[in-house]
């Protein structure tokens, strides 16, 4: 009798209840795990985009400062920047004569064994500076262009083909930004007009 009374108070879970509870638990946990993975991926992409936005802004501003403060140089400036480069349809160099009289040469530089490229700035004294100061952002070398209009010197009235045209630089580049195993490619294009008004009037 005693044992029977004790037994009747022994409320446990039935097998069905345990199976149902486990199923619900597994479904909920797997849903949360999927969501967590999704949030992680989103977070990585947010980081990539923030990095891309910062790097591209930096890249554009550095070039814009040099182009506006200096003067586009049409002669030879160092080994990479040669006279007549701007006439090529695949031009990847830009020479700037600064107000201090320095010559700057912007050109692509290989930064890794995988052929990844960055933009570099070389002065006549040989100082080298990377324009993109980021280890995880690269330029696809085949897509990079400096399109300079006019192609030949507008600063001379005699000898120049296109005198009096305010120079303008169009920059086209595919930027690759990496973060972990993810990467994003951004085809970017913008133009910067010179601010120098000492071109002789016609």
């Amino acid at each position, binding site marked *: 009798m005693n044992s029977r009374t004790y037994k009747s108070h022994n409320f446990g879970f039935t097998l069905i209840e345990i199976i149902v509870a486990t199923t619900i638990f597994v479904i909920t946990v797997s*849903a949360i795990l999927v*969501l967590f993975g*999704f*949030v992680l*991926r*989103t977070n990585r*992409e*947010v980081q*990539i*985009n*923030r990095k*891309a*936005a910062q790097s*591209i802004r930096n890249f*554009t501003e550095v070039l814009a400062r040099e182009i506006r403060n200096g003067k586009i140089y049409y002669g030879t400036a160092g080994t990479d920047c040669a006279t007549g480069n701007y006439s090529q*349809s*695949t031009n990847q160099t830009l020479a700037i004569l600064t107000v201090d009289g320095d010559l700057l040469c912007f050109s692509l530089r290989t930064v890794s064994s995988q052929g990844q490229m960055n933009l570099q700035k070389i002065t006549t004294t040989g100082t080298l500076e990377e324009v993109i100061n980021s280890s995880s952002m690269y330029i696809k070398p085949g*897509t990079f*262009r400096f*399109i300079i*209009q*006019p*192609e030949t010197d*507008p600063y001379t009235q005699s000898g120049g*083909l*296109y005198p*009096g*045209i*305010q120079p*303008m630089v*169009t920059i*086209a580049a*595919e930027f690759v930004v990496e973060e972990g195993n993810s990467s*994003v490619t*951004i*085809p*970017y*294009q*913008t*133009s*910067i*007009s*010179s601010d120098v*008004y000492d*071109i002789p*009037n*016609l």
Partner: protein
Amino acid sequence: MKNIFLKTKTSQSGQTLIETLVAAFVLVMGISASIGLASYSLRATTLSTKQIIAMGLAREGVEAVKNMRDTNWLRSAMTTNCFNYFTQASNASCYQNWLSGGTALYNIAGATTGTNYRLGIDQAQATAYWKLTSATNNYGLNLNTTNPTYGFYIPGTIPTLSGTSVTASNTKFGRRITILQDGTFAPFSSATYLRRVKVSVDVWWADGTRCPVSDTPPTGSKCHIKLETYLTNWKNYEL
């Protein structure tokens, strides 16, 4: 015995249907809210990539028009018949063709009500690379990353300058430049050559169902950025 059996039966309290429904509803609401939040943040990231590109293109539009004004200054002769605000006489030095263009110059005059332009590339004319074409449609940009001789984002086909509409098959980016002659207050209202122009550049893009493909800029700020600047004829004012 019967009484005891009945008593045990009534003390068996489970969840009612209402309670179960409420619990399920709360669970579904919670999960769908978090999924919605996650998908929203994913969409926001793709949006920021488009915004980076759009900002570059809009900046290019502003720079191109500024460059045209500069070229008009540098390639035209100075005259001495411009309006002098202090003496109220037309005897000031200026470049009177800074807006209207002429031989090998650009026409960036616009209109007092605003004129819409497409910014094209004129391959045939070496002295004028950029070209503004007055247009009411076909503001689309094609993408060419394999041979970017004229840049990545090309308006239409070079050298026809005919433009292309914003479609689902090209970049889905559109760019429209509006030039408005603003003479609403002095000194810009006083004389022909003393106007100022307001340059507005709209860049917009299509993005799924949120921003449908359109050849005209959307009214809001969704998938759309707008840059504005004022250009004046400030060079070489003297008596």
